[in-house]
């Protein structure tokens, strides 16, 4: 028999079942406010133990007085009366039964066996207790490339979780009955279910679970702003850091891909109806995957010479490797989706012509027209839109110039105007292509930066400077018409504006000069008019975005749908996918009605 520190904690005595030698113990409380009555054998006599619901709220009451340190001979499950003490098994070292019931001060508890009778699911712990008993696992960080190394290459910064880290992180999920994280996800991925599978080390099944609702998990796991979506709603996040849902998503998708476990379902059904998808960005790819899986013929028309839309030309390699984008697109090809490159819908084929050829059309062309500030000197050389800068690098591989033919814009002192993810991308690209000094100029304060915190951190680590509360008012150039400086004005924050953020107000007379030999304007994009010139009757709002029925994402032209940035303005990859899903659902419904009438 072990010696116990016989302590009364808060004047209460706790009951444990445990091996006196190895101290594996079973806590014998159950949830519910009522006391549970256990039958126990004490010195050959049957007694009753009454135990309260919560770990820190134990009540003990017995029909015979027992003291701390005394051993019960047996304890029975209150539900099925089976013994909870396995007398058949003995500790290998001390030969005492593996479990004995000892009255003790609760010190160390390890969740432990179920009732021995098969089928009786009862075990001694309430879920809440179990949680308290778990060793507290902090949010697991992703291992990443060293900052001094990564500023010299274009390889991805985070390496992603290992299996061990993923298992550890998965234990942090509470498996809520009403999971709020799912509401936070624009495509409602069954997050607890996939994390449960991760915890069981069924990584492959976890990936398949996500794919039931999200066709691009490897991409979303990387570029979704989880901190303002699923992870923002995570209950763990109330007191601690939320479960790293995005990192787990990325892990399982990478696992599935890297282990060669991706299976392309054989779609036998051919419904005889076909749809056209305009644009191969995230919205279009979602519609294509959904509709193809239902048995429709799908043709995706892409204006560029590479598929993927913003995933390809916009998001840099070090944040989203293009091989992953192409892998996902190949998956769609294997599903049977047809891709047509270099096809500019509008001038080459009008929406009307597509309507004649296809049963339905989805427009997911994004918001690709770069916005400029319309200030003096914007036409100077080496003033770029973020779109041009990123397109040159990501799409045209200008960083490999002169092996690739597109020249790479370089500067020693680079200024990036804007505070969003695109601005961070541009700044981090500049660092990687040898710029000595990269500065982000943003008109509000750090709190208002629209970029993901993770991206801001990465940028700071890589040595990018931030000039906050600063707004450019003109560019200054030299005789060769190349930009040499930026005249800025200091800002202060006033009352909140329509976006809820405090409005920046210029401070009169605070003008100052920021020297630079290259400037990148990353203040947003707007609707590209190219498709509308041949389709004037497509209704648009005052910002030029397509008007849709929000329930169905159908446009003013029947069976022509739209989704993604072209209906909302610049938003996220996953929101575009959510919009695509809504359109696909209604498209399927309407096309089914048409099919069934025939």
């Amino acid at each position, binding site marked *: 028999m072990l010696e116990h520190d016989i302590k009364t904690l808060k004047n209460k005595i706790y009951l444990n079942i445990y091996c006196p030698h190895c101290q594996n113990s079973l806590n014998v409380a159950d949830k519910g406010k009522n006391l549970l009555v256990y039958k126990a054998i004490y010195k050959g006599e049957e007694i009753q133990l009454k135990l309260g619901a919560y770990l820190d709220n134990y009540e003990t009451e017995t029909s015979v007085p027992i003291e701390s340190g005394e051993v019960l001979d047996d304890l029975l499950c209150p539900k099925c009366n089976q013994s909870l003490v396995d007398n058949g098994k003995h500790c290998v070292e001390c030969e005492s039964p593996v479990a004995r019931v000892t009255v003790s001060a609760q010190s160390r508890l390890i969740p432990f066996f179920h009732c021995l009778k098969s089928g009786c699911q009862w075990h001694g712990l309430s879920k809440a207790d179990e949680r308290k008993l778990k060793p507290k696992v902090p949010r697991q960080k992703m291992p990443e490339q060293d900052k001094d190394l990564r500023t010299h290459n274009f390889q991805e910064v985070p390496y992603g979780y290992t299996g061990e880290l993923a298992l550890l992180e998965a234990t942090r999920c509470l498996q809520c009955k009403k999971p709020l994280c799912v509401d936070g996800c624009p495509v409602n991925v069954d997050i607890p279910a996939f994390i449960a599978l991760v915890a069981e080390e069924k990584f492959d099944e976890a990936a398949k679970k996500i794919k039931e609702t999200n066709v691009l998990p490897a991409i979303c796991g990387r570029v979704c702003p989880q901190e303002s979506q699923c992870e923002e709603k995570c209950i763990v996040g109330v007191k601690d850091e939320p479960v790293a849902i995005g990192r787990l998503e990325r892990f399982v998708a990478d696992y599935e891909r890297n282990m060669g476990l991706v299976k392309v379902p054989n779609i036998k059904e051919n419904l005889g109806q076909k749809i056209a998808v305009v644009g191969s960005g995230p919205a279009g790819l979602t519609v294509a995957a959904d509709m193809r899986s239902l048995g429709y013929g799908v043709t995706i028309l892409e204006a560029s010479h590479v598929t993927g839309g913003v995933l390809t030309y916009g998001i840099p390699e070090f944040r989203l490797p293009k091989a992953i984008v192409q892998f996902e697109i190949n998956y769609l090809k294997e599903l049977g989706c047809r891709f047509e490159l270099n096809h500019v819908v509008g001038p080459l084929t009008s929406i009307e012509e597509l309507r004649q050829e296809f049963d339905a059309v989805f427009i997911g062309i994004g918001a690709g*027209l*770069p916005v*400029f500030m*319309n200030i003096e000197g914007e036409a100077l050389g080496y003033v770029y*839109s973020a*779109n041009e800068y990123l397109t040159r690098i990501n799409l045209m591989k200008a960083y490999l110039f002169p092996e*690739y033919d597109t*020249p790479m814009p370089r500067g020693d002192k680079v200024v990036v105007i804007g505070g969003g993810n695109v601005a961070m991308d541009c700044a981090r690209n500049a660092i990687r292509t040898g710029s000595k000094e990269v500065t982000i100029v943003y008109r509000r304060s750090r709190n208002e930066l629209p970029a993901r915190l993770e991206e801001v951190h990465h940028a700071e680590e890589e040595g990018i400077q931030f000039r906050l509360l600063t707004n450019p008012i003109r560019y200054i150039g030299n005789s060769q018409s190349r930009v040499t400086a930026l005249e800025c004005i200091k800002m202060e924050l006033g009352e909140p504006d329509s976006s809820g953020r405090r409005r920046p107000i210029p401070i009169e007379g605070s003008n100052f000069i920021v020297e630079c030999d290259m400037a990148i304007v990353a203040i947003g994009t707007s609707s*590209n008019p190219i498709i509308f010139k041949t389709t004037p009757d497509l209704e648009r709002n005052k910002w030029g975005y397509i008007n849709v029925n929000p329930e169905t994402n159908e446009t003013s032209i029947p069976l022509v749908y739209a989704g993604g940035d072209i209906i909302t303005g610049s938003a996220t990859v996953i929101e575009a996918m959510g919009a695509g899903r809504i359109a696909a659902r209604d498209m399927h419904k309407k096309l089914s009605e048409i099919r069934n009438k025939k």
Partner: protein
Amino acid sequence: MFPIVNKQTMAKGTIVRFDISAPKIARKVQAGQFVIIRVHEKGERIPLTVAEADAFIGTITIIFQVVGKTTALMRSLNEGDMIQDVVGPLGKPAETHNHGTVVMVGGGTGVAIIYHVTKAMKEAGNKVIGIIGAREQNMLILEEEMRVLCDELFITTDDGSYGMKGFVTDPLRTLLTERKDINLVYAIGPIIMMKNVCKLTKEFNMRTMVSLNPVMIDGTGMCGGCRVSIDGKTKFCCVDGPDFDGHTVDFDELEKRNSLYLKDEKDSLLFSVH
């Protein structure tokens, strides 16, 4: 992949004509519109205005001057070779309705583009006066084709080796002074030529259209690299143009923007030689 079905070199090999099989584009393209070409997997995207299209055979014609790496590479291609990407038709078509009498001014390779617009102008019922110019006789292209289309044709060469000695602005000045029935001038050619034509027509308050050729990447309104200042406002040449009212164009800015990558162009050429 788009096969080259016909190749022809002109102007001592400095100007090349390709007929490229691109049936969809050939059916849609209108005068004044351009295509973006990427020759091979590692190539850059360059805009080239379509000089002619045959919807029946499914070919488009481009005529380009060899100025840099990509055009030099293109010259080395032959009939049967493939071009990786051809995207189009892009840009707004030229305004080719019946204006009455129009003067079509083309210089250098600009003649190739003015030819396409001239054809459309003629078909729309305009009376067409042509002025085409080149540095010297050997550099002059499409003379016969223009002669067939134009009701009157003037030819100038800088060195006087053929036609009138001088610039395209010389016969234009005479025309604008003597003729009162001219409704529109269309000028396509080197930036300096278009700038001078516009300076001249401004004196006569004569509406003048020009076709601009800034650096472009995607050609679909995405990159903003082709921005030009029109009446002090920023416009994207690829979606708002390429044709603009010449009197509103900031030619000096365009010239400077177009010379931004001259050093890169050299590096790129050197690299390909090695």
